[in-house]
């Protein structure tokens, strides 16, 4: 660790003689029997961008919570700029010059940008003087780091990219020298992410130290100087980014070789299974969410819907899955299905051979307090196969569940365990097992790998490909461009309730898709 601090990749802004901005020595933290952090040592050079990568539950967030004073470490020492520092609460972390940008922003929605920046760092008991000083200071920082924000804009009225900039400004306003960002790009378009990275490089040039927590290998490779890998609460490696590769990092994260590219044969599309024409949805607030969507999915083909969250993808899935009412026309296997009325519900859809893996598995896919076997029968509880006359055939369902859990490698394979006790990846496998094993003609999948670790992602992707190869039609919605590019046979990009265009994965790139996702059409091919 020590030698790394002395020559950590010589980042351009780094000062070789200065003590490391952050040094952790033997940090351990346990929650009951779970050892979240085991003897972690880490040293981050001043003026470096340091990545911390690891699967969900590897202990990244716990470590950062200790740094930000949310938890007290059971053992170990924190040194800030070479001085041992005790961080009992967030106030102490701020005083030590640490700023944190959380994955879920900690902003007050109906406050202005300025009020959010000032909150907790006011100059005196009265706001008037604080506000005028803060306005000046904020404008200065914003100009210095090229982050244009309107101090009087309300948070609820600005986009997520801008909200994130407010979070960064909040830290800078508090004179943070060390900035920790937790999964910062999850909510951003590729263009916004690029902008963020430009800001981070600018901050680094000013001598700020940045810690970037992410599970996206591409970001690590793109922006960091050094990277640490965490696995099961331990820091398994710290390497210079220039001297490693995504494959090596993935292997360090998971502990075995991982297939980063989805391995699949060319599609052999058959007849059209799903035909959607001029689909429109108006929500409760009278806002049109889908503005005339038309698309087709053929048997043995995966149609990927790319787009930034909130551009109508969820509504499309919900209409097809029988959750939302709509106007327009949808044909499955050449037959019209009802979009309103009593035959437009989830059960009718399932009877027509449509299975739905919802985007939010914890809210729409599972009942978290119910056991795995109960969850695996949901949506199909009316099926005579699950019943003995008037009563549910619980023993039969449990036997069935055990088989499904084995085939989908759900761990632990205990069908009595409540859904909330499984990890994100295993929860998703339970939902997939339920929907895929019904052998649907059309599978709707929303965000199949959100919050799922790399090992499970590989498995889930393989299962989806297998279903495709079995001649089924698959409609995939994901905000992860990598996933869309890797899995889809055709890609449709949604923006503002419309399909902006269709592309073939081999004939497009992330840049072009990113532009479409932002609503920019390149002239040809737009629907």
């Amino acid at each position, binding site marked *: 660790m020590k030698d790394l601090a002395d020559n950590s990749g010589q980042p351009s802004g780094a000062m070789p003689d200065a003590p490391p901005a952050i040094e952790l020595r033997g940090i351990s933290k346990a929650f009951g029997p779970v050892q979240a952090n085991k003897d972690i040592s880490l040293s981050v050079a001043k003026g470096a961008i340091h990545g911390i990568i690891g699967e969900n539950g590897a202990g990244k967030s716990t470590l950062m*919570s200790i740094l930000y004073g949310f938890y007290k470490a059971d053992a170990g020492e924190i040194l800030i700029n070479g001085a041992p520092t005790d961080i009992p609460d967030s106030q102490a972390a*701020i005083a030590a010059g640490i700023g*944190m940008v959380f994955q879920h922003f900690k902003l007050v929605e109906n406050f202005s940008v300025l009020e959010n920046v000032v909150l907790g760092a*006011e100059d005196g008991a009265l*706001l008037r003087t604080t506000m005028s000083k803060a306005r000046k200071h904020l404008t200065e920082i914003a100009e210095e780091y090229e982050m244009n924000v309107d101090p009087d804009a309300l948070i609820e009225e600005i986009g997520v990219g801008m909200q994130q900039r407010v979070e960064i400004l909040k830290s800078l306003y508090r004179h943070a020298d060390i900035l920790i960002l937790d999964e910062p790009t999850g909510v951003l378009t590729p263009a916004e992410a690029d902008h963020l990275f430009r800001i981070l490089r600018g901050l680094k040039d000013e001598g700020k130290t940045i810690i970037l927590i992410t599970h996206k290998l591409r970001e690590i490779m793109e922006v960091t100087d050094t990277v640490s890998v965490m696995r099961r609460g331990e820091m398994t490696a710290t390497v210079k980014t220039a001297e490693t590769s995504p494959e090596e990092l993935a292997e360090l994260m998971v502990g075995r070789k991982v297939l980063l590219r989805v391995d699949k044969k060319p599609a052999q599309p058959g007849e059209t299974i799903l035909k959607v024409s001029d689909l429109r949805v108006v929500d409760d607030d009278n806002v049109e969410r889908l503005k005339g969507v038309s698309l087709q999915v053929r048997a043995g083909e995966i149609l990927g819907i790319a787009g930034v969250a909130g551009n109508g993808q969820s509504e499309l899935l919900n209409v097809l899955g029988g959750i939302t009412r709509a106007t327009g026309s949808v044909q499955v296997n050449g037959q019209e299905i009802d979009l309103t009325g009593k035959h437009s519900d989830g059960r009718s859809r399932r009877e027509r051979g449509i299975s739905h893996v919802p985007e939010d598995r914890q809210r729409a896919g599972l009942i978290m307090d119910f056991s795995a076997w109960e969850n695996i029968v949901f949506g199909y509880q009316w099926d005579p196969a699950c019943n003995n006359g008037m009563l549910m055939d619980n023993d039969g369902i449990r036997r069935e569940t055990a088989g499904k859990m084995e085939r989908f490698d759900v761990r632990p394979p205990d069908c009595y365990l409540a859904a909330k006790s499984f990890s994100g990846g295993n929860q998703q496998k339970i939902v997939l097992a339920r929907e895929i094993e019904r052998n649907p003609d059309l599978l709707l999948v929303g965000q199949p790998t959100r919050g799922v670790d790399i090992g499970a992602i590989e498995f889930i992707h393989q299962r989806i490909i297998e279903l495709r190869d079995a001649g089924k039609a698959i409609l995939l919605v994901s905000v992860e461009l990598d996933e869309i590019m890797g899995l889809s046979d055709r890609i449709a990009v949604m923006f503002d309730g419309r399909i902006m265009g269709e592309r073939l994965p081999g004939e497009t790139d992330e840049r072009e898709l990113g532009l479409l996702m932002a609503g920019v059409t390149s002239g040809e091919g737009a629907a």
Partner: protein
Amino acid sequence: MDFSTLIQILDSTLRMATPLLLACLAGLFSERSGIFDIGLEAKMLISAFFSAAVAYETGSVWLGLLAGIGSSLVFAAIHGVASITFRGNQLISGVALNFLAAGMTVLIAQNWFQQGGRTPSLMGGARFEPLTLPFADSLAAVPIFGPLYAELLSGHSILVYVALLAVPASWWVLFRTRFGLRLRAVGENPAAVDTAGVSVVALRYSAVAIAGLLCGIAGAYMSTGLGAGFVKDMTAGRGYIALAALIFAKWRPWYALSACLLFGLLQALALRTDVVARIFPFEMPVQLLDSLPYILTVVILAGFVGKAIPPRAGGTPYVKER
């Protein structure tokens, strides 16, 4: 209806609106910090009893007021411990306090004074006397303005003026001070306050304490200003009406003033059936008049009056995120 009747009704409106306004502002502070307070009623009632009882025993209305505020603060503290420290259900805690106050006041009153669950009538220094504002007498002769000043504004007990001044004061605290900024933030997104290094618990306790103070004044006014002694269930649902006014007012102090004056007017009209009879060509049953404030409450709570967005973190205990 002549001018003097109008003045009389408005005068009565002001007096009826005072306890509502204080309770409404109490609810405003509490709910702005994210703590729902259905127990405004309880705090007013317990304060009404203790201020009357202590004022009677000591002969000093000021000691009575202190006792009332003290008892209301104790109830506020119970609500705080239940809903902030132990993260209990805020509605349940409030309802429990309401029952407790309703039963406890009558029980103690009976045991103490043996007058059927009421306190003896208060007289002299044991009541808040009307204050005459400066120049009220000399200005009384001026047309229009004179009666407005001398009869409508002047001649109320000091607590009425406290309630009226509490409106700009609350506005100033909420929107012009650091405390107010943090208080509003903690009711919207406590995590933002927490990560900014400010204690969520301390902020919420202070908001609940302010609610206790204001409800204490409201209760004391009921039994020592508006009335002359404590009577069983004398708050008569004013705590709930104040909550309705709070929703009507969209959690804003100046709107709260207007909403409470409206409710006060309805209550004042119910006292003047003769006037109502002259306005309406048909006979309006007294019972209907009496129930108007409650009917309006139901209408407001059912959401017929525009869209009111409560503080987003209202009702949910704050648990630190991992």
